[in-house]
């Protein structure tokens, strides 16, 4: 009986709260907020905030055409695989001090770094399975973008691991839970002088990793017909758009947890101050933590994605690569060196 | 006298390597391999040689603690090594014949379809 209840509980975790439903709602909402913000920054009114939801449901209602040249199974499964991988990935990212140990202890930051490849691989496979030449060009660019983002991301994570590891045995620490724990007691990592360049670098990596403007050469709709998505229609396309939204959520919440993880430390005492105790207090503080996380995600989106989108024009693919491997990696490397020599 | 042997073997090895590196003819490359092999063989024999030692062939009871003889192990090794050297030469010459058939030349600078 207990086991069944437990199983149901974990199923609920996967499907509802940090899992699928939450990802679906907040991912698309984040996407909508981003679109709205970009529009406002360009002095436009912009679409309604719920526009991504409309888009998603509309696409669900459309006909799904499988091109004759495509590999049907791969074509249909690729978006679902990406979605599942992203949902599971989101489970691994703790919400401040509130995490589900069974999930967050499964993986560390390096693992998350690799799990982030799965959605990219899924979109690449999906695109490639159609055999479209646009997909060919698109996947090549997507891969180069992933490659470009990898180096700075690695450097940032290594710097973080070094800083946090100082208080743990072994000298390095990549566990997400421990990183957040460390911030609870030592203050957010952003206050660590040596990590400020790393935080900036990570912020700059976010749009590249999510494939947002101006690093969306892989899905340039005006030149290569949205690249890998060129042959997708209907619901699978909708799922890919959903994946994009969830990836934004994942990247931004990863950023928040890595650099602002200490902000949630006050929540529990705040709730206690109000006078709540027991389960109710826990529920309320979790709710507050989620809200805080989402708010921070929105702010990170506004700064890291929307602002960058609004003020730049799309880069060419070799410029993206050059940019990430020089400017952003330089920042991250600076951070690593600073951290290494004790700043 | 032993020093001369060492110098000679070193000279042979270097000569073989020089031949392999500098000569652009396949047959000369094979010759270089052989020379290098001989150099090593000479080295082995020299190492096993004890000045004034007898041949390490004894019948039962002949062998005494004071017997002064040449180390037999390097000689055994040399035999093996010579056999292997002959194999190398045979095999590479077979390949050279086939290469000449296929490419029509023995110049290594023209036998470079696999590159980059």
């Amino acid at each position, binding site marked *: 009986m207990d086991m069944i209840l437990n199983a149901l509980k974990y199923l609920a975790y996967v499907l509802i709260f940090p899992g699928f439903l939450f990802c679906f709602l907040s991912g698309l909402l984040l996407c909508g907020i981003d*679109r709205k913000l970009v*529009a406002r920054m*360009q*002095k*436009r*009114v*912009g*679409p*309604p905030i719920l*526009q991504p*939801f*409309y*888009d*998603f*449901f*509309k696409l*669900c*209602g*459309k*006909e*799904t*055409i499988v091109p004759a040249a495509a590999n049907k199974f791969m074509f249909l499964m690729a978006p679902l695989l990406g979605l599942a991988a992203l949902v599971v990935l989101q489970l691994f990212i703790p919400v401040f001090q509130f995490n589900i140990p069974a999930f967050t202890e499964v993986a560390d930051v390096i693992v998350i770094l690799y799990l982030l490849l799965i959605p990219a691989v899924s979109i690449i496979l999906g695109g490639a399975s159609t055999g479209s030449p*646009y997909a060919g060009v698109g996947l090549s660019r997507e891969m180069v973008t992933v490659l470009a983002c990898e180096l700075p991301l690695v450097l940032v994570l290594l710097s973080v691991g070094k800083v946090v590891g100082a208080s743990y045995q072994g000298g390095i620490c990549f566990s997400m839970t421990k990183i957040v724990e460390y911030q609870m007691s030592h203050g957010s990592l952003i206050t660590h002088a040596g990590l400020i360049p790393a935080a900036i670098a990570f912020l700059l990596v976010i749009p590249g990793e999510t494939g947002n403007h101006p690093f969306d050469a892989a899905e*340039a*709709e*005006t*030149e*290569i*017909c*949205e690249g890998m*998505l*060129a*042959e*997708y*229609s*209907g619901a699978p*396309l909708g799922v890919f758009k959903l994946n994009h939204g969830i990836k934004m959520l994942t990247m931004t919440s990863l950023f928040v947890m890595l650099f602002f993880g200490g902000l949630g430390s006050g929540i529990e005492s705040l709730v206690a101050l109000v006078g709540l105790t027991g389960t109710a207090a826990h529920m309320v503080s979790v709710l507050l933590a989620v809200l805080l996380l989402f708010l921070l995600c929105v702010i990170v989106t506004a700064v890291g994605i929307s602002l960058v989108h609004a003020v730049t024009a799309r880069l060419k693919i070799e410029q993206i690569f050059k940019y990430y491997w020089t400017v952003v990696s330089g920042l991250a490397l600076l951070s690593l060196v600073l951290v290494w020599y004790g700043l | 006298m032993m020093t001369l042997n060492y110098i000679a073997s070193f000279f042979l090895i270097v000569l073989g390597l020089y031949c392999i590196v500098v000569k652009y003819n396949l047959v000369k490359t094979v010759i270089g391999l052989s020379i290098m092999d001989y150099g090593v063989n000479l080295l082995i024999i020299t190492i096993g040689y004890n000045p004034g030692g007898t041949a390490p062939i004894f019948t039962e009871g002949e062998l005494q603690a004071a017997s002064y003889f040449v180390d037999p192990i390097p000689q055994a090794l040399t035999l093996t090594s010579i056999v292997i050297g002959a194999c190398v030469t045979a095999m590479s010459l077979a390949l050279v014949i086939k290469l000449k058939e296929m490419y029509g030349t023995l110049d290594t600078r023209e036998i470079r379809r696999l590159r980059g």
Partner: protein
Amino acid sequence: MFKKLIAESTGKSPWLFHINAGSCNGCDIELVSVLTPRYDAERLGFKLTGSPRHADIVVVTGPVTQQSLNRVLRSIEQVPDPKCIVTMGSCPQSGNVFRGSYSVAGPLSKYVHVDVDVAGCTPKPEAVIDGLYLATQILAEKRKEMKK
């Protein structure tokens, strides 16, 4: 509920695919101007897509030249249902000043069913918004019919 959501959303997120069938570029520029901050069609959910597979509304400009005819028809055919075809400007509706030229394959309506004509040479951006708006309504209806 899912079906209701779909029905609700169909009219709210029309994505455009723009085909230039030999246009003089006048209409093309006006179509883009619809998306500029002044008119900002995105606030109505309009979005230009790069691939016909993503589109709901196909906007055709230009007199459909012989060279472009097959390509236009192929692209239109590849749009998933429900779809809506909008001709923009006089050219695709009649050939306009190019009518009767040996290189013009004639009005688009000869080949496919055209849902909305937006007349003008070129139409004002406002008129384009009018036409696209009408197209979204047609789209929602088509979606209902498709369900049946």
